[in-house]
C-alpha cells in the first residue's frame, strides 16, 4: 500500500474541512490561554492552501506540500503560520519529485517536518505546544511502520498517540507562545496548537488509507 499524490491532496482537503468545522472550538481553546485566533488563523491558512491546490492538481507530492507551506507562510497571521509552514516545507524537501510514498517514506517525511517545527519554535516536549501531540505521534508511527504494522494501523496508532499527547497538555504549564505569559495559570487548559496537530493526524488516518 502506497500513498499517492491524490491521497496527499485528499489529506489536505480533509484537514481543511475538519479545521473549518472546528474553527470556533480551536478559537475558544485559544481564548482561554492565548490570543483567541488559532481557529481563525488555521482556517484562513487552509482556505488559502485549498485555493492554491486547485492550480497544482497534477504536481508531484513535494510540490503539493511546498505549495501548502507557502500558502500558510504567507496567509496565516499567528505563529501557526511559520510553524505549520515549516512542517510542510520540511516534508516537501523529503518528497521532492515523488508521485507516491511508501509507509517508510511517509514516516521519514513527517519526522523531518516535526523536527523542523521544534527547531523553528525552539520548543521541547512538555512545553505545552503542538509538539506535545506531534512527537508522540511520530514515535508511534515509527514503531508501527518500521515494525510490522501496515499503513492504516500505523496511522491509527499515530492518531491515538497524538490524541493522548493533546490531552496530556491540559496539566502542563506553557513555556512557549502566548500562553507562557500566563505561567502557572496556563495549566488546566488544553493547548490549541496540540489540538490542531491532533486533527491533522486524524485527517491523515482518514485520508491516506
Amino acid at each position, binding site marked *: 500500500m502506497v500513498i499517492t499524490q491524490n491521497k496527499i491532496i485528499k489529506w489536505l482537503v480533509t484537514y481543511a474541512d475538519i479545521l473549518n468545522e472546528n474553527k470556533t472550538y480551536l478559537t475558544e481553546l485559544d481564548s482561554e490561554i492565548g*490570543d483567541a*485566533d488559532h481557529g481563525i*488563523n488555521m482556517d*484562513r491558512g487552509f482556505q488559502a492552501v485549498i485555493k492554491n491546490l486547485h492550480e497544482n492538481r497534477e504536481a508531484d507530492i513535494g510540490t503539493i506540500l511546498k505549495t501548502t507551506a*507557502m500558502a500558510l*507562510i*504567507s*496567509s*496565516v*497571521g*499567528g*505563529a*501557526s*503560520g*511559520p*510553524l505549520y*509552514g*515549516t512542517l510542510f516545507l520540511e516534508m516537501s524537501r523529503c518528497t521532492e519529485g515523488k508521485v507516491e510514498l511508501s509507509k517508510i517514506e511517509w514516516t521519514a517525511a513527517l519526522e523531518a517536518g516535526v523536527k523542523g517545527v521544534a527547531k*523553528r*519554535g525552539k520548543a521541547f516536549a512538555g512545553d505545552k505546544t503542538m509538539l506535545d501531540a506531534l512527537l508522540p505521534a511520530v514515535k508511534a508511527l515509527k514503531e508501527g511502520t518500521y515494525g510490522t504494522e501496515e499503513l492504516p494501523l500505523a496511522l491509527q496508532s499515530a492518531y491515538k498517540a497524538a490524541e493522548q499527547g493533546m490531552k496530556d497538555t491540559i496539566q502542563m504549564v506553557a513555556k512557549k*507562545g*502566548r500562553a507562557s505569559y500566563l505561567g502557572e495559570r496556563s495549566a488546566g487548559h488544553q493547548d490549541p496548537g496540540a489540538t490542531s496537530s491532533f486533527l491533522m493526524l486524524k485527517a491523515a488516518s482518514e485520508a491516506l488509507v
Partner: protein
Amino acid sequence: MIGIVLISHSRKLAEGVLDLAREMGGEDLNIIAVGGVGKNDDSLGTTATSIHDAIEKVFSNDGVLVLMDLGSAVINAEFALEMMPKEKSKKVYLCGASLVEGAVAAAVQVRIGASLDKVFKEAQNSLAAKQIQLGVSELEINNDLPPTLSEIKENEETFFRLVINNPVGLHARPAARFVEKAGSFPKTNIFVTNITRKKGPVSGKSIIRLTALGVRQGDEIQVTAVGDNSNVALEDLRNLLETQINEK
C-alpha cells in the same frame, strides 16, 4: 543608508512607531513598517513573506536593523531571514529591543551615521533610560558603562560646564540634537556628566546614556572631550547648547 524594519501584529502600531522614529531620525530615514494580515492588513498578525519583502525594500550593503513586537513576529522575522541568501542575511540584524524604545534609539544612531553594530547595540540597550528614570539602578541594567571620571583628565581645555535651561532638559529632541552633533566628531570621545545630580559621565554619542542622566531644567552639566579636535568639538557643542537648546 542603514535600513530599519518595524514589525508589529498591528499595522497601525507599526506605522505609529514609524512616525515616532521619523521624528527623531529625520524625514530621509530609510525605514519601513510591516504588519497585519488579511484584507488591507486589517487583522492582527505577521507573515514571513511580508517581512521578507519589507527587508528587501530597505536593504543596502550598509545593512538592516529589524525590530519586532512579540510571538509570531519573532518567529516570522527569523523565517524571513532564512529565505534570503546568506551573504545578504548576514547584514540583517534581528534586535530583541522593545519596539518603541528600540526604534527611536536606532533612528537617532542611523541619523548620526553609526555602524550597524552600534545601531544594534544602542537599540538593544534602549530600555535603560526608562528604567533608570523609574528608579532601577543603572548597574542592574548594564555592566557596559563608559569610563569613570578618573579616566577622563579634567583640565580647562577639554571640558566646559553649563546650566541647561530648556524646559524639557536634555531629553528627547534636544538630546537627539546633541548626540547628532557629538556624532559628527568620530575621532573625539565626548562624555557628559550631570553635575547637579551626580550622574555620569556617559557617552555623549549615545542618546540612551545621555537621556539616562536625567538632565532637567536648571541642572548643570559638564561636557568633556578627549582626542583629536576636542577643542573644536567642545566649541561646537557649547554653541549648540547655548544658542539652540537653551532658550534665551
